[in-house]
């Protein structure tokens, strides 16, 4: 369990959360590198199908933010 690292896919709204993730970089905040960001034009673009597809792909967590 101790070595296990989750894989997380983050669907981030281009206008807020994606910008916030950029800002976290500008502020040099350090966070674990387990996240892969997929930029979407708006959280409205999010479909339950993407979440299910991600989980099916073996991803451990889906994060939607917008």
């Amino acid at each position: 369990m101790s070595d296990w690292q989750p894989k997380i896919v983050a669907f981030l709204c281009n206008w807020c959360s994606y910008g916030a993730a950029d800002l976290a970089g500008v502020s040099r905040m350090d966070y674990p590198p387990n996240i892969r960001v997929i930029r979407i034009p708006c959280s409205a673009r999010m479909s339950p199908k993407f979440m299910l597809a991600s989980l099916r792909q073996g991803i451990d967590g889906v994060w939607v933010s917008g």
Partner: protein
Amino acid sequence: MGIAKRKAIYVEYAQAVPLKYAIDPKECIYLTKGKCGACKKICPADAINFDEKEKNLTLNVGAVVISPGFSPYDPTKFDNYQYSKLPNVMTAMEYERILSASGPTKGHLVRPSDHKEPKKIAWFQCVGSRDLNKCDNSYCSSVCCMYAIKEAVISKEHAGKGLDCAIFFMDIRTHGKDFEKYYENAKNKHGVRFIRSRVHTITPIPNSDDLEIRYIKEDGELVVEAFDMIVLSVGLATSPETVEFAKTLDIKLTEGKFCETTTFEPVNTSRKGIYVAGAFQGPKDIPQSIIEASAGASAAGEILTPSRNTLTKVKEFIPEINVINDRPRIGVFVCRCGINIASVVDVPGVAEYAKTLPYVEFVTDNLFSCSQDTQNTIASIMKEKNLNRIVVAACTPKTHEPLFQETLSNAGLNKYLFEMANIRNQDSWVHKSTPELATEKAKDLVRMAVVKVALTEPLKEAELAINQTALVIGGGISGMVAAKSLSKQGYVTHILERSDKLGGQALSLFKTGKEENIQNELSKLVDDVKKDKNIQIHLKTDISKVDGFVGNFKTVLSSNGKDEVLEHGVTIMATGAAPIIPEEYQYGKDPRIITNLDLDKKFITNDPMLKTLKTAIFIQCVGSREPNRMYCSRLCCTNSVLNALELKKINPEMNVFILYRDMRTYGEKELLYKKARKEGVIFIRYTLNEKPRVVFEEDELAVIVKDHVLSRPIMIKTDLLSLAPAIVPYADDKLAKFFKVPLNEDGFFVERHAKLGPSEFATDGVFLCGLAHYPKPIDESIAHAKAAASRAVTLLAKKKVYVSGQIAAVQPANCSSCGVCISICAFSAPSFVEKGPFTGKAEINPVLCKGCGLCVSSCRSGAIRLKGFDNDQIFSQIFAIK
């Protein structure tokens, strides 16, 4: 702000534009002592120039808009609050930083002295406002009540139930749109305590960092209470530098050191050609500042119309290469960004890896991909290697996508055949401690970008011609000012008015707080509009149908049973609002009980009865701030104070009472309130639970109200009772549907953005001003009207617009015609096809689509695609994650 330490090289704040470093000349050892200079040696971009000096530039301009802003009041002078001595006494601006995720505590709510999480926080209102004792600012700063409530609510949300927030205030002034509801929620839902008391002194509690205060409750009880932190809600003040600046510009200031303006020209300074916007015009919040900024631009635009587009250059057009049906040939450019990426991520490793990915034909790494010479290199490589898709692995598309897209365009490639992998902001900068994992992540991100770009198609940007005619709906002050502004900027404008007369509510108003005669000014305005050759007036006219959309509206104007089709490019909603007919306080049962507008009319006609009055009473909030109408009508407090003063002018011996709940004479209107008290107007506060009662004592009219000082009911016999009724909009549902714009539950139009888009709708080409947005006095209505005109002109002046290619499109064969897309789209882009083989299926107007993708994910039948963020593209990204 001095809450935390800052290095000699710094970024102003996390959201600064441009987001670039600066050197603090006061701290830099090289600049102060001539030693060091290490930054210059180490900077790979060679961006440091110690010799850069302040320069004086001379610009030849036709108009100036100034918006020097305010500085927060410095409470050091309030010695009994000991702001400079006690670390846990802070200003609201400093507290704002504590709450901010990019602040010194990273948004963790702790107090400065010992980093303890506070359990009790107090806010003191009116520090540096409404005060002649400790400072000379007798005006109200307008924004502090709302920001204090906001801070209290956010604090509670941050800290959870254990935190107690108390706001000490004189009057709560939540006169902005939707603010009253926020205030009610703060009280009832979040449990913020509101205490009507002005606290005199803050005393530190010995052997602790806690603070003690004593205050008198409304019932006279003395309370001693301890708090962990105290936030001073400091007011807005004009800085000495700005005062100096005003002198240089030779513009006049008001008593409160704000820029002097008139009601009818609210953004004109005393000097011709210089306009003002924002808090320097008077203390105000964001939406009002945004309105004035647009209004200032409009005022400048009005005098600069002849010179518009005289200094512009035409861009060279490069024909686009057809890549459809070509196999993807992807070029990947991995950026080192100096050491920003390369010091953490193994850039050559990532580049090597990229070569192994499908369809990738060319990979290289650059020191700075965004530099001009690299851009040229990329363009020539694209041509040389015949690349048809480009990936740049660098910083963020938020800032750099347009730049690289332009490089594509210049090389003749459709700009949408491009993708960025964010390996700086979202990788190297945030995973410094784990470089290997950061490199792995960079490879993943590059792979995800490559698979996505391979599926990218060239996209077309729809072109839209903008009809150069404008329609303004509503012939009140707002409508007329908007029309006049549009006309002055060269556009033919039609004004539509449902009644038989221009003027609207202003027809029954007497005087402004600046002693201007409203009827004189109004008739001047009506004359101007009537004489204006660019303006066509349609009285007694309604709208029976609207077709089309931004740039191409076709509106059917109906008058006397006759229809006329008007083609126009933009629409301004200035439909106004009107006072309700009161249903309480015995209104309508006695001629002595009237409304404030009735009283204004008596002033206008110089009614002889006014001279006979010995007593007059005003009752505020008649229908406003009540559960079924939970908003403040904003202008009634000032209106009643003005009328009270006018009565005192007629007969200084007259007994004048104003029965109120909170006096909301915001900004410099506070001076009128002060003057009224000086003239002997008596203000009695009542509560919603104990409203005044109107009784008839035989022939005499009397009001019974519980006096807030004596705490017992008193009866006042009066000759006149003037009610301040709530202002309600027309809430024309039909009109709202015609132009596809929303109404809120109170019937006011909902603007594009409550703070940043107050003068336009989310629906393109439709703009908003005046009372239809929210109750407001004349000066604010005029600023709003000019702002709406300004927003409309930014569209009209383009003549043609191109919209993004990243929009939704329907595949009709899959469409089941259920209509979800039509119902759910905020921008009215989808509609049903009316003719041809796909009749009944949905289609999306590319001009109106904003590309948000809501319809795409709401479509159960999967019939809608979002170009640029298509389903298989997003799936390919998901599947590319290892």
